């Protein structure tokens, strides 16, 4: 061997060692964030809570996802090669997958690289109807995909699902193509295809880990689960097998914050983070102090610190000096109270019952709820649909939400007056009128109870408070034993259908707890479902809002506000309603972090 070749080889070895050393020595980009509530499991079929899904979203991948910055919300391709082909008037969806997507390495694959197969999506859907899993997410596919209800019923009867038996509505055409045939036209199925609940799962992994699968999530996403101390600490690391993808988004031109975030991330390879450390911090004080200490990279401002941190809706000077960024947003949710339409006193569709429900709604001081109980962290909900959801009408109004004089006049007009001189209003037939308020024992719920009691005292309506644990109240609610109940709904996708299904007549007994069954409303609901998103569907949703205003089956309260505070070194991030924390779209400026924390 010549001297020059020896020299070249030695130089190459030294260079390789230096590169490896530099890679090892390069400071890692580590994001540290809090969870408010403990996660439960990382099995997409078993878990249903937001926190578990915040992690699941980074490990598993559905065919579609959402654009991080586009508003109104917009779908993007994830593992799908192109947008699914929708045929037969919204009944058939054909999904073609990108080439070369592989799962993260796992012993279950026996050392081989495992490429994504269309069967992995079929398997994920089937797991949702496995009676052994009792998936809380089965509603996403039950009643939607052709033949799935029959397969679920058969599996329940046998107490076992035959995974090898095909479901008529799911066809794997080849390794990269899957076709879903729906039971009826449903243009919102595209949104279902963007939910990680349907993220690809490898059957061999699930079978390898058995009942422990919740602790061994293996997907095609940008991160892998590295460490997990349940209810305390979760560590994700960059998936070395993740495909080459670069950040792209469509921020609204009139949204400077989104424009800034876009510039911070534009064209960067995803993910930028090497590691994500998640800490479960249930109490607000340690969460807040840890954020101020720089131990956490963002925090959803606990409402008790709001007046100190963002007085007048702007970050306090001491926070601004630290470079903290303030990102307020409205959650796509609704806090509401349903009336049991089958209740002999409060339910029904006759004018006096409608007047009674409206009067109680008008007597409730929503301003006091927002400013005193919620410390300003909510906005009034005028309809069932929050801003950002297709069908939301910012101009819709039925007059002032709080009008006790009008409430009293309505009750007087329909004969709900004090008939026995005890100081409380009675029903038109002379029997006592009692508003039974069912609630839980928490501090917040006690505040709501006080507010209701105060408002009903002004109206002259007697209040009976029933305190019970949430599971007991839910059981009673499902059995139609409550006259009303205070609930909240978080959007699963940005379309009015996701909220209005809570009032769709045939859903009485499942999601329609108040059993509101009105033919006119149901007809509108079905018409909207058969239309693609667009002005026609929006017009129907407006009409549905009007019907609800007339019959008053719900008292809508608020949409919650999120006051997110972000450290100055965090780039590209804002909370997303549907892809949660989206760590894949976050970067960290290590120099800025070092400067602020020195």
């Amino acid at each position: 061997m010549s001297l020059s070749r020896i020299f070249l080889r030695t130089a190459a070895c030294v260079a390789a060692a230096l590169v490896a050393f530099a890679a090892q020595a390069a400071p890692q980009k580590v994001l540290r964030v809090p969870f408010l509530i403990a996660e439960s499991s990382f099995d997409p079929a078993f878990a249903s809570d937001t926190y578990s899904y915040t992690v699941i979203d980074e490990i598993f991948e559905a065919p579609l996802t959402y654009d991080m910055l586009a508003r109104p919300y917009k779908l993007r391709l994830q593992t799908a090669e192109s947008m699914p082909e929708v045929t037969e008037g919204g009944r058939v969806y054909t999904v073609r997958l990108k080439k070369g997507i592989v799962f993260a390495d796992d012993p279950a694959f026996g050392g081989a690289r495992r490429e994504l197969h269309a069967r992995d999506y079929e398997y994920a859907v089937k797991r949702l109807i496995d009676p052994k899993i009792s998936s809380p997410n089965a509603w996403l596919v039950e009643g939607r995909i052709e033949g799935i209800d029959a397969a679920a019923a058969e599996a329940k009867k046998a107490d076992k699902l035959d995974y090898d038996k095909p479901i008529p509505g799911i066809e794997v055409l080849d390794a990269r193509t899957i076709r879903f045939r729906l039971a009826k036209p449903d243009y919102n199925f595209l949104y279902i295809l963007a939910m990680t609940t349907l993220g690809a799962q490898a059957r061999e992994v699930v079978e390898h880990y058995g009942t422990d699968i919740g602790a061994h999530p293996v997907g095609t996403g940008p991160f892998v689960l590295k460490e997990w101390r349940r209810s305390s600490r979760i560590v994700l690391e960059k998936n070395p097998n993740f495909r080459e993808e670069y950040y792209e988004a469509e921020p609204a031109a009139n949204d400077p914050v989104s424009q800034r975030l876009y510039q911070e991330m534009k064209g960067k390879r995803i993910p930028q983070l090497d590691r994500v450390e998640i800490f479960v911090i249930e109490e607000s004080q340690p969460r807040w102090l840890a954020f101020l200490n720089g131990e956490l990279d963002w925090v959803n401002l606990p409402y008790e610190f709001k007046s100190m941190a963002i007085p007048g809706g702007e970050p306090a000077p001491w926070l601004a000096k630290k470079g903290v960024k303030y990102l307020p947003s409205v959650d796509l949710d609704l806090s509401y109270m349903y009336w049991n339409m089958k209740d002999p006193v409060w339910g029904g569709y006759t004018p006096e019952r409608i007047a009674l429900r409206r009067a109680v709604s008008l007597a409730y001081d929503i301003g006091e709820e927002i400013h005193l109980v919620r410390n300003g962290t909510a906005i009034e909900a005028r309809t069932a649909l929050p801003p950002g959801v297709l069908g939301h009408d910012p101009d819709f109004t039925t007059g002032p939400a709080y009008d006790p004089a009008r409430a009293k006049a309505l009750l007087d007009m329909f004969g709900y007056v004090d008939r026995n001189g005890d100081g409380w209003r009675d029903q038109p037939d002379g029997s006592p009128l009692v508003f039974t308020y069912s609630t839980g024992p928490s501090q917040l719920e006690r505040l709501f109870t006080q507010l209701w009691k105060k408002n009903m005292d002004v109206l002259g309506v007697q209040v009976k408070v029933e305190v019970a644990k949430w599971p007991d109240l839910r059981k009673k609610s499902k059995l139609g034993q409550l006259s009303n109940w205070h609930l909240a709904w978080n959007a699963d996708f940005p379309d009015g259908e996701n909220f209005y299904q809570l009032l769709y007549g045939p859903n009485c007994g499942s999601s329609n707890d108040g059993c509101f069954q009105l033919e006119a409303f149901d007809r509108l609901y079905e018409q909207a479902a058969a239309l693609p998103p667009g002005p026609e569907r929006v017009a129907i949703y407006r009409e549905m809002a009007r019907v609800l205003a007339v019959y008053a089956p719900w008292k809508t309260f608020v949409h919650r506000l999120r006051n997110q505070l972000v450290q100055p070194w965090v780039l590209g991030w804002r909370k997303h309603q549907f892809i949660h924390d989206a760590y894949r779209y976050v970067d960290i400026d290590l120099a800025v972090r070092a400067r602020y924390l020195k």
Partner: protein
Amino acid sequence: MWQMIPTLAGVILLIFFLFNWVGGDPAQVLAGKISNPEQIANIRKQLGVDQPYWYQLWVFVQQVFTFDFGRSWSTNEEVSRILLTRVGPTLTIMVPVLVIETVLAVALAVMVAYVRGSLTDRTIMVICTTAMSISFLVYIIFGQWLFGFILGWFPVQGWSESYWRNLTHYAPLPIMLAIFVGLAPALRLYRSFFLEEINQDYVRTARAKGLPEKTVMMKHVLRNALIPILTNVGIYLPSVFVGSFLLEVFFSIPGLGREIVTAVNRSDFPVIKAVTVYLAVLTMIVNLLVDVMYKLVDPRVSFK
């Protein structure tokens, strides 16, 4: 010792009936956002809560004797694993608390009892009464803010995988706060034990014989006062294994106290069952050990 069997049977019956009467339906918690009666029925079937009560009770008894409580209903994690992984952090906090608090309380109580009626004694008693009047929550909130945030002596919260890092980095502040809270009532109580012994005839006799005061206090008074002190420590000992819910929640310590409250909120009966039975057995064993220790401390005590 045989008394342990009916006690355990009583505990099993009590937990079983309490859960079935007031525990709430777990199927409602696990059913997710949208459920229907068939789904609820299937969850009940998978959990086994659709079986007759006598059968469920029999399964519970089998679980107690096999130490296999199955899996958590809400996380699907093995209950035995939950207990094993949570008890470590709890003991990391609670054992130092018990040891330091007992040693400090006994030492201070001997000193205060020795100077009973003096200004020092009165001042310490006033401080103890004041300290006892303040809620544990106030100590935690203030201590976390002052020592963790303002002074920066300790991290505000956290826990790691390393035992030594936990003991030296994350545990000192919660341990210190727990000692602050527990010291005042223990000191008052132990002082009263010592005062009772100091007034006994045998102490007067020992002094009359000319024994040095140190010998009187440390050999005679301390030994006799140890019996009620042991009883008190024995009562406290089982709680060492359950931990402090408030400390664990505020300092993000993944211990048993926090797990128990989470399990109750989620109607997670397997975890509740396991923890309650384990605690009952532990309490009985500790009581037995304390009885044995009486004999070691005071040979006059008889087991008959």
